[in-house]
């Protein structure tokens, strides 16, 4: 038995459809170390989200399985917190209450009410959202909503933070801000992160490891690229960095040459 922190071994999954079973993933193997930042990249429909959902416990793999600290993942849980693409905040709760829902659920037995309050505020501070703690999601911008979504996930003190295209719906500038925030948080807390992205620059900038997936059906891990850039990373400095551009080119070659998508 391997001792890696998070391990996907021989994961494949089939979904029943009207035309018989559809094999979305085939033999996905992946090992992720603690505190590692891993990006999953690939064309849409290649099963990136499915991988994430299996790790989250939302789907159950047809064969193979996921081990987190050598324990099998069977169901969703707060130790594998998810940041959803469209933030998924409860629209009738303020940002504070949204984080509170998670904190109350996870720390009901281990923290007092005052400690829970401090913890909520601490997490809102991490994402720079304390000023809007009494605002409803409809009253803040898309980037802010996603920050709160991240705060809610971080507040669960997850072993693994799962992010499903967290910045996909944001404009480029907001996205850059949030990427920087995420790098800071990752540097501070050292979470293990799995992030799905479409954005090559984002993947190279943030990750320790980029997992490139082949196209579905029966998608699998095509290649893994280790990003050995020093941290902290600065997007401006890296823009002219040869190594950064090399990694970038590698990912682009994988996506647009070796695994070109037929008929997009």
């Amino acid at each position, binding site marked *: 038995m391997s001792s890696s922190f998070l391990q996907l071994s021989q994961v494949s999954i089939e979904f029943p459809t009207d035309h018989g079973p559809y094999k979305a993933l085939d033999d996905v193997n992946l090992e992720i170390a603690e505190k590692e930042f891993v990006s999953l990249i690939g064309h849409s429909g290649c099963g990136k989200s499915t991988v994430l959902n299996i790790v989250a416990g939302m789907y159950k793999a047809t064969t193979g399985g996921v081990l987190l600290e050598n324990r099998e993942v069977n169901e969703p849980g707060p130790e594998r917190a998810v940041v*959803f693409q469209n933030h*998924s905040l409860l629209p*009738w*709760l303020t940002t504070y209450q949204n984080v509170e*829902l998670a904190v109350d*659920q996870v720390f009901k037995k281990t923290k007092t009410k005052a400690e829970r309050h401090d913890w909520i505020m601490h997490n809102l501070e991490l994402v720079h959202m304390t000023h809007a703690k009494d605002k409803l999601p409809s009253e*803040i911008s898309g980037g802010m909503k996603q920050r709160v979504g991240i705060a809610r996930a971080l507040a669960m003190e997850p072993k693994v933070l799962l992010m499903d295209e967290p910045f996909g719906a944001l404009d480029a500038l907001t996205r850059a801000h949030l990427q920087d925030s995420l790098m800071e948080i990752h540097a501070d807390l050292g979470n293990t992160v799995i992030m799905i992205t479409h954005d090559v620059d984002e993947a190279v900038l943030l990750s320790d490891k980029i997992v490139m997936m082949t196209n579905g059906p029966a998608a699998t891990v095509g290649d893994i690229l280790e990003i050995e850039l020093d941290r902290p990373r600065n997007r401006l400095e890296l823009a002219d960095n040869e190594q950064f551009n090399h990694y970038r080119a590698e990912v682009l070659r994988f996506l647009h040459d070796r695994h070109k998508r037929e008929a997009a």
Partner: protein
Amino acid sequence: MKYFMRDELFKGDIMLFKFQLKSFLAKSSLVKSEGEGLMSTISPITLPKDLGNKIIKTFVVPFVAFLLFLGIWGATASQIVTSLGEVPGPQQVWEQSVSLYNEHKEERVKEEKFYERQEKRNAKKLEKNPDAVVKIRSYTGKETFFDQMLTSLYTVLTGFIVASLIAIPVGIVSGLSSTVHRALNPIIQIFKPVSPLAWLPIVTMIVSAVYVSNDPMFSKSFITSAITVTLCCMWPTIINTSIGVSSIDSDLINVSRVLRLSWFTKVYKIVLPSSVPMIFAGLRLSLGIGWMVLIAAEMLAQNPGLGKFVWDEFQNGSSNSLARIMVAVFAIGIIGFMLDRTMLYFQQKVSWDRNAVIR
């Protein structure tokens, strides 16, 4: 020819540009945005001219339309002569509403006097003999139009509340489980269109058979009417609650799965708040139907409310009867309208969806 066309095109462009400029200026002067580019409120500053338009639209137009309606009614009503005389116009209806109000006041005075007399009589009795058993009777004068309104309101609210207490839980369960939904849906669809007049005989017989008591807390007619209201008005709430619950954003359900919320917490913290706008939309429909149904139910069940008032006036057949029934028609309409506005108020209060237009 070519040049001409280009010229025309050019003109068109200028016109377009002018138009865009105009609308841009109009927007920038009328619209101010708050906050740092958020989805904040963009509120137009109302100019005096707009304000005038607004007053005309909100007050003058409906008022003129109502006057027009009264005019047409007044002109046509007197053309039709029934066995009870001419069909009353607005004038007669107004007179009758005043007289109904006076009757109400007279009745109240009578009631007061009755209690005064009773008190005096009892006081005298006690003066003579301190151990005397004093009889206190409640006044049994005839119910006035306004008493009947209150009875109707009380009855419809009872039926409505019972219906809601049944419909909301049933709707939640049927929204959460597709099996329950499949089981209940045919029953709901079959009973939904049934008229109160069809329910009433059944309800009457069952109430007579089951509700047997020497000292009944409620009169049978009240229970029959309220149950009929319940039977007719619970369907929209069931259907809306079920739709609201089943159409909850799957991401929110995923949030509850990640948090490992218990079934009860999930329903209480996520499912219910998320479907509350739909539930209230259903409740509003239900109350509307309940009020409509109540009048028919009261007519047949002889519950002393507005329905009975209409029926009694119809049986009475005096020359004022039609006008008095029309007063009841207006009262029913106005109360129904107010009930609807009340529900609308609650509906807007509980709605978390700021983009939804509720009216």
